């Protein structure tokens, strides 16, 4: 009986076993890949939902950078409202993300002011704000809502008081009456403000 199995048969059985082992290993590998992609998809879906929520929750998008570092405040009640955003960074004044005037050493060039170096009114800022006011008034008329004249001031923490008053004065000339200063939450001042 033992003599009935020759070496060629043994080799064939051996090869078949090896093939079966390889097939098993390959199947296991495919299963492992499927498992990995499942977890990855779950993680991505959660991250995507979280990011989309944080992206769309505020009516106004403000991004801090080295040029525009907001001061911190202890105010904890009010969030952002939909209004015209006047941003003062280290290098420029912007209205709704459009640059209207360059800054040099934190000041506006006197050629851009109506009354020279001592003047308060910044001409390009006034033009940009007037254009926005005109647009907002047109929208207010169509929606039967009064024009509020509110502006959000987003200024770098090192902005000088002089520049701030120049911007506020110019905005006032463009019919803005209410201002809200934007600051990042989280200032810690100690027990006296509790």
């Amino acid at each position, binding site marked *: 009986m033992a003599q009935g199995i020759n070496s060629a048969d043994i080799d064939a059985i051996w090869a078949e076993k090896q093939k079966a082992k390889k097939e098993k290993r390959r199947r296991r590998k495919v*299963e492992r*890949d*499927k*498992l990995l*992609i*499942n977890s*990855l*998809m779950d993680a*991505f*879906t959660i991250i*995507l939902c979280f*990011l989309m929520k*944080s*992206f769309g929750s*505020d009516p106004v*998008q*403000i991004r*801090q950078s080295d040029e525009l570092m*907001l*001061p*911190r*405040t*202890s*105010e904890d*009640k*009010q*969030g*952002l*409202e939909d209004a015209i955003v006047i941003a003062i960074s280290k290098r420029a004044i912007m209205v709704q993300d459009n640059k209207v005037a360059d800054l040099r050493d934190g000041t506006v060039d006197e050629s851009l002011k109506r009354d020279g170096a001592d003047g*308060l009114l910044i001409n390009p800022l006034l033009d940009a704000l007037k254009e926005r006011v005109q647009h907002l008034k047109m929208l207010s008329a169509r929606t039967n809502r009064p024009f509020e004249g509110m502006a*959000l001031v987003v*200024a*770098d*923490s*090192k*902005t*000088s*008081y*002089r520049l*701030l*008053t120049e911007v*506020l*004065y110019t905005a*006032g000339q463009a019919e*803005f*009456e*209410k*201002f*809200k*200063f*934007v*600051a*990042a*939450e*989280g*200032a810690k*001042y100690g027990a*006296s*403000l*509790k």
Partner: protein
Amino acid sequence: MGKPRREEEGYEGDPLIPILNLVCMLIPLLLYGAVFVRFMTLDVNAPKIAQAPAQQQPEENKALNLTVMITDQGFHFKVNPIHRLPWMSQATDTASAGPDIPKKDDDWDFEEFNRKLKELKDLHREEVNIILGAEDDIPYEVLIKAMDYSRGGSEEETQLFPIVTLTRGVV
């Protein structure tokens, strides 16, 4: 003979690749635009641009008219003369008078500023207005800090002077 193992149901690998590519592109895009810091707003009334202090008749005007000027030397308080406290300077212009609260360790003494405001608030419970002004080169963060301290606590009973009006420069 054991039960044959139920084959796990999983996503098919190949059709997911375009979706994964899309998700991989969306995540950096959203991360770039995402805001992880909450922003607060502080109400401010439009600045008063008058260069000279308004002429007041103390007998007629009994309001506190609290004005605080922030200078490089410290805090200067101005009130209606009939409400002036002993620690307040009597000089009419800020430039010639020393500060009512001088700087401490080269920084503005906000704790003392808060104490003085509380003293004024105790004498004028109904008053909620404060006018803030500063020298030209005072940074915005100092103004925000002064606004925080002049507003006081977040509860109504601990609030000091929450309605802030800015004034142009030092008067």
